[in-house]
């Protein structure tokens, strides 16, 4: 579980995160949603310590990230896996070497065991036969999978995903979402996903935090999101014509139920 308390962050006098407090639960897909520029990435980078917030606390099962000493911070880092928006695979290494990298740096396994573990992770993300290829030689969806395999190589307790399906086609998107969901449930880890994709929200959103211009606007889950009365949230959710028509259909259905005789 990760607990965020009163996190504030501003850049050059412009406040990007206004006093955010929230809880990300273990074994659940915790989604941070919001428009582009609403501060999702900044919040995530604060959570993992890439950006120092101006004030606030970030508790990893009770350990305050911002107060940890270097050795403890290093230990915590090894418990964190992260999937970056652009995959961030090391392009001088092959797929296999990428997945093995955290193991090489931080585990005491011998080479054969490391290879076995990396192979297992690659199979876990349904990737076969790409071990010796370089990241530039595989498709975006495959890169995402390799990045997931690398993120789970050290059995993380916390998994962060920044826009895991940006740049992917709808089908691949759904596969990646399912993969994240399966891994979260199977290993019972705390997963946090940034997204603005409504398909993901409705697919895997166990716990959803809606950011609007750096403010926490709404908290709920995928069953509550369509029926919320929050205006900003509705503008976000029903922005696309598809969802507008879904809403219209839902409303007219309810209308028909309430007044069966027209």
């Amino acid at each position, binding site marked *: 579980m990760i607990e965020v308390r009163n996190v504030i962050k501003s850049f050059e006098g412009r406040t990007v995160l206004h006093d955010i407090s929230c809880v990300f639960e273990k074994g659940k897909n915790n989604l941070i949603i919001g428009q582009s520029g609403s501060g999702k990435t900044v919040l995530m980078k604060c959570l993992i310590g*890439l950006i120092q917030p101006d004030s606030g606390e970030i508790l990893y099962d009770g350990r305050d990230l911002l107060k940890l000493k270097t050795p403890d911070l290093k230990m915590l880092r090894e418990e*964190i896996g992260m999937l970056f928006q652009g995959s*961030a*695979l*090391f*392009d001088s290494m092959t797929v296999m070497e990428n997945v093995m990298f955290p193991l090489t740096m931080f585990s005491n396994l011998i080479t054969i065991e490391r290879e076995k573990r990396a192979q297992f992770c690659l199979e876990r993300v349904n990737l076969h036969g790409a071990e010796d290829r370089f990241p530039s030689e595989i498709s975006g969806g495959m890169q995402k999978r390799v990045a997931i395999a690398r993120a789970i190589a050290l059995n993380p307790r916390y998994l962060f995903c920044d826009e895991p399906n940006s740049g992917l086609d709808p089908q691949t998107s759904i596969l990646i979402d399912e993969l994240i969901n399966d891994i979260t449930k199977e290993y019972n880890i705390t997963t946090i996903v940034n997204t603005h994709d409504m398909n993901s929200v409705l697919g895997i959103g166990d716990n959803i935090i809606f950011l609007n211009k750096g403010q926490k606007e709404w908290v709920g889950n995928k069953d509550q999101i369509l029926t919320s009365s929050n205006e900003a949230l509705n503008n976000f959710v029903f922005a696309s014509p598809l969802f507008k028509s879904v809403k219209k259909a839902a409303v007219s259905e309810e209308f028909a139920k309430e007044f069966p005789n027209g």
Partner: protein
Amino acid sequence: MPLVKSVSTLGSYVLLMKKVFSVPERWSVFFQQFIREVCKLILDSIWIVVIISIFIGAVITIQTQLNMSTPLLPRYTVGLATRDVLLLEFSSAIMCLILSGKVGSNIASEIGTMRVTEQIDALEIMGVNSACFLILPKIAALVIFIPILVILSMFTGILGGYLVALTTNVISVSTYIYGIQTAFIEYYVFYSLQKSLVFAFIIASISSFYGYSISGGAIEVGKASTNAVVISSIFILLFDVILTKILLQ
């Protein structure tokens, strides 16, 4: 304001170097990276060092002969002058200027691309000291092997002059050979090697610094690699003056 900016840039440079000079997490990985950098930065530069040195050695020989066609100077002065120009200045300072263009821009754009595509963030998240992991092997590779390139350049430069003597009637081979052996001061070689150690560090560290501190998108990568070359060239020339004053006087 430019002064404030330079001071703060210098400050960030010093802080980055502090991060770079720490003990690598895994020596085996460090060694692997080191070998990779040597192949990419040094082995790939051998041909350019050889070609440029041969041509410059040849040109210096021809020009010196033209400017010294007075009976007051012995003919072998041409060989002597060629050798000393190479040993004192060309093979260290000018060669490093050329290498800063080739190697420096390569380093800055590689690290810059890693910054822009969040690969450096990925390293940090894993708990790897990204500065030490990426930059230390490059500094080590250049500081150890650029002096060797400098020696190579000295030999091939003198060879360039020899080829001129052999193929033209500018100077006879025996006079040239006599010239390059006359009044040889060993210390010139050590002076050049000491300079090249400093230049190698300047190229590696400044280029890495400009790549590492990029913020923003792909356009910044181009800017960083230009800055890396310009600034490291300026510092090479500055330290050329300083070190010459210290070491030769």
